[in-house]
């Protein structure tokens, strides 16, 4: 899938980073991620009138998940491939007060 970056490499590298054995293939309608019995197609939604561009993930069963941006794609994909995955949450600066501090 022709974008300004290599989506196939991103998804392939992501599966490797997560320790998920997957085969990743690029096609005309998106990039397919095959992991075990599961196949997820990741496609870019081009900008349409009144709608922001974004991403869609599809299973062969017809289930569809949308994501606004790349971080959402990665979260959704990992959640589908690794159901027990619990994402971390970034804490930047002093968003909360540690217990016991003043």
């Amino acid at each position, binding site marked *: 899938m022709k*974008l*300004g*970056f*290599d*989506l196939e*490499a*991103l998804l392939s*590298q*992501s599966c*490797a*980073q*997560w320790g998920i054995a997957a085969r990743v293939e690029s096609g005309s309608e998106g990039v397919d991620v095959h992991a075990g019995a599961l196949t997820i197609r990741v496609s870019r939604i081009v900008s349409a009138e009144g709608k*922001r*561009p974004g991403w869609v993930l599809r299973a062969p069963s017809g289930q569809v998940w949308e994501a606004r*941006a*790349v*971080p959402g794609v*990665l*979260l959704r994909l*990992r959640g589908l491939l690794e159901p027990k995955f619990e*994402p*971390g*949450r*970034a*804490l*930047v*600066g*002093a*968003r*909360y*007060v*540690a*217990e*016991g*501090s*003043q």
Partner: protein
Amino acid sequence: MNRLPVHVLTGFLGSGKTTFLNQLLKDEALEQSAVVVNEFGDISIDHLLVEHSDDRLIELPGGCVCCAVRGDLAETLAALLHAREAGRCQAFDRIVIETTGVAEPVPIVNLLATDAFLSERTRLGRVIATVDAVNGPQTLSRYVSARRQVALADRIVVSKTDLAPIAPAAAEVARFNPTASVVSAVSGRLASAGRLVDWLEEQASPGFSVPLPDSHDHQGISTFTVVRETPVPGAALALLIEVLAQHLGARLLRVKGIVALRESPESPALLQGAQHVFHPIDFLPQWPDTDTRTRLVFIGEGIEQRWVEAVLDALVWEVDQQSPGR
């Protein structure tokens, strides 16, 4: 508010932390330091060994600073800062925390970023690790906490170099942390670092006083540098932080770097984080040298450089897509 640097002095049991701390406190330029000493064990003794006999030496007994007494550390630092602001103690312009030999420095580093009171008044200075030239190489191969201490450090003191050559310990250190500045010490005295205060507190970006490391992996700890020639949109950096936290968590031992932001190319941003916690972004008034590239050093367990680079490339592209006119 001008935030006080808080230096974290770490190092495995018997590696010379207290000896180095005593030398540090004897340095005229560093005399204005408050010290927090953490004890580990039933009988407190470390604080007796630190030659700093005034109200700026505080002992934290009862457990390891990285876990059991984290709340105590926050309270102690807050009390120290209150006393300073009210003029109820001798003046100091930095704080040094000496951890126990078995402590992991990450929670301390993260405490400084996440505690609202502390993060407003302090900033992370240097993480300094001591490594014993005699036993250091063996200790590093045997103990995970020793490897993590070294991996996280900005400055490494190889001690006892009068008893053993520095080379084996320095080589072992470089495997885990090729970005740190390494000097040898005898009885806590540094051999070749010039002025101690400069070595400790120079205002250059963190971790870039030596050549950037090539990617490598040693006993599970990988170190690599992501370099970008062109400035990065601030939104892409923010999203990268989110993705790192979401997917890496505790495997990201530390990330530190200097970032050319597209929105402020003349004032580089300093990024520091450990695990899922990131310090507030600091900006340097100007680049410390002629190299104005983004350079992010990653130290972690099982982190693929290619993945980080692929994510960053995707985020930059996507942010650009949503910025009309670019």
